[in-house]
């Protein structure tokens, strides 16, 4: 209750989610893969026919890293919003867990770690498909598996912050259309971020985690140096740490009464 730091017991929370996942993975993992492929086909090959190469990069190869980054985001964000909310509110799983020697902090960190794991699993599944389509360069793109972890932690933490504050499952759609959707559009995903007005570029880099993730992801799949690679990494690290602390505090406030 008050002796609150996170011990290795956090792995049990992760394991519990993993255990459920093994039983339901077919249902939970095919849709995100198809989602990514639809995007790639519709944009990369459909729209791509009308779009000239961007800085010498054909459009499908330009969009592919963004599709992966969005997939990384979705995998953990949806896990810790809708997934965690269902566990917390409907299944009362967290109540059951904090009655064991596990602390609430460990439950929360375990949820975020699990969200990040889903991002990594997603990346592991989508990479071969993109490799077959020939839209990513190898072996550099394999580093996306590593990038998926901080990316997943970050979006998992953001998701839990919303879960901690949402009054009901319906209101979880607010952060989605007020934050996730605009971010998906202005983060250098479907067109270069440089084509936006410079103020919006600043907003994107200051506030939009996806912009940093896309920037790093694109450098990896195109095997080119990231223009602001270090800044992107630093930004992701600092914000991830901050978001995780906020998520734990908010969830404590909600659950420890």
């Amino acid at each position: 209750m008050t002796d609150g730091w996170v011990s290795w017991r956090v792995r049990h929370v992760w394991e519990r989610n993993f255990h459920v996942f093994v039983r339901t993975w077919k249902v939970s993992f095919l849709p995100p893969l198809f989602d990514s492929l639809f995007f790639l086909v519709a944009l990369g090959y459909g729209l791509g026919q009308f779009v000239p190469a961007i800085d010498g990069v054909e459009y499908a190869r330009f969009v592919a890293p963004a599709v992966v980054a969005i997939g990384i985001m979705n995998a953990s964000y949806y896990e810790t919003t809708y997934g965690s909310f269902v566990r917390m509110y409907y299944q009362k799983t967290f109540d059951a867990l904090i009655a064991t020697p596990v602390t609430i902090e460990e439950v929360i960190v375990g949820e975020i770690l699990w969200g990040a794991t889903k991002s990594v699993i997603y990346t592991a599944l989508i990479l071969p498909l993109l490799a077959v389509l020939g839209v990513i360069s190898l072996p550099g793109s394999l580093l996306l598996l590593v990038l998926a972890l901080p990316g997943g932690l970050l979006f998992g933490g953001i998701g839990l912050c919303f879960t901690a504050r949402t009054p009901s499952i319906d209101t979880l759609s607010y952060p989605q259309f007020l934050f996730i959707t605009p971010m998906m559009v202005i983060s250098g995903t479907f067109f270069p971020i440089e084509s936006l007005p410079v103020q919006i570029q600043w907003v994107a880099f200051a506030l939009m985690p996806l912009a940093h993730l896309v920037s790093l992801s694109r450098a990896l799949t195109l095997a080119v140096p990231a223009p602001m690679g270090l800044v992107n990494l630093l930004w992701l690290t600092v914000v991830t740490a901050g978001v995780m602390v906020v998520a734990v505090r908010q969830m404590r406030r909600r659950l420890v009464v």
Partner: protein
Amino acid sequence: MAVPAIQAEGLVKRFGDLVAVDGCSFVVREGEVFGFLGPNGAGKTSTMRMIACVSPKSGGRLRVFGLDVDRYPREIKAQIGVVSQENNLDPDLSVFDNLVVFARFFEIDRTEAARRAEELIDFFSLREKRDTPIEYLSGGMKRRLTIARALINRPRLVILDEPTTGLDPQARSLIWERLRALRDRGSTVLLSTHYLEEAERFCDRLVIMDRGKILVEGRPDEIVSARMNRFVVETTATPEVIALLEREGIGYERFGDLVHITVDAAEPLVQRLVSECSPARLHVRSATLEDVFLRLTGRGLKD
């Protein structure tokens, strides 16, 4: 003297302005079945949640096995099993998996967890449902599994919040029987219930709570004999009956068209009632915990 399983002194729980538990003191000894009785909103669940170290106390002292709940929650939680009012099983998992996955949170290794799970499945008569996902279980089976799960760490203290509420009589009696078996093996059982007749039969000691305060503590039979005459005469509230009682100055309580008169010797009153009033209905029974409960907490609806 041995360290009590639970020792509370002036225990307080506040939610904003609401005082849910208002200075409660009680002792639960090791190896007894101890009941929390009281109307809804009396503070039973809040008290149990503080004992289970899932809800911080707002004041007073609370020790479980001699350990302070604020300082040693992990150590305490390792030794207790909790069955909450709401079903919080994992709906995606089978009966067996629910047990073994939960065991991991207590650092029980896989082989040992599987062994204990099989044992508990038998103990709670769930053998045929071992591999069934829990969404296909009946309410009684789910409750049995929830209790089984709370025993996976071989707890010294089991805390159950209304373990028999909403179940049919067969399911209820099975649960009581298992809880007693558990007590006979040396575990301490702490529970809340609305079934006063069951509490009277199965609890070694109990408290009755109302509005955050403990009204009485003790053995059910002692509580009844200390507070009530031995018998309750129940009869129709006809004007003749009321007139007789008023005339003789005999205390009575009126519930709708019935009156209850508690007496130590029923025969003289019954004879007079029969001969002077010939009421349509006359019934003599022993005073029960329910009579004490209603007298202490009142008959008005609580929520």
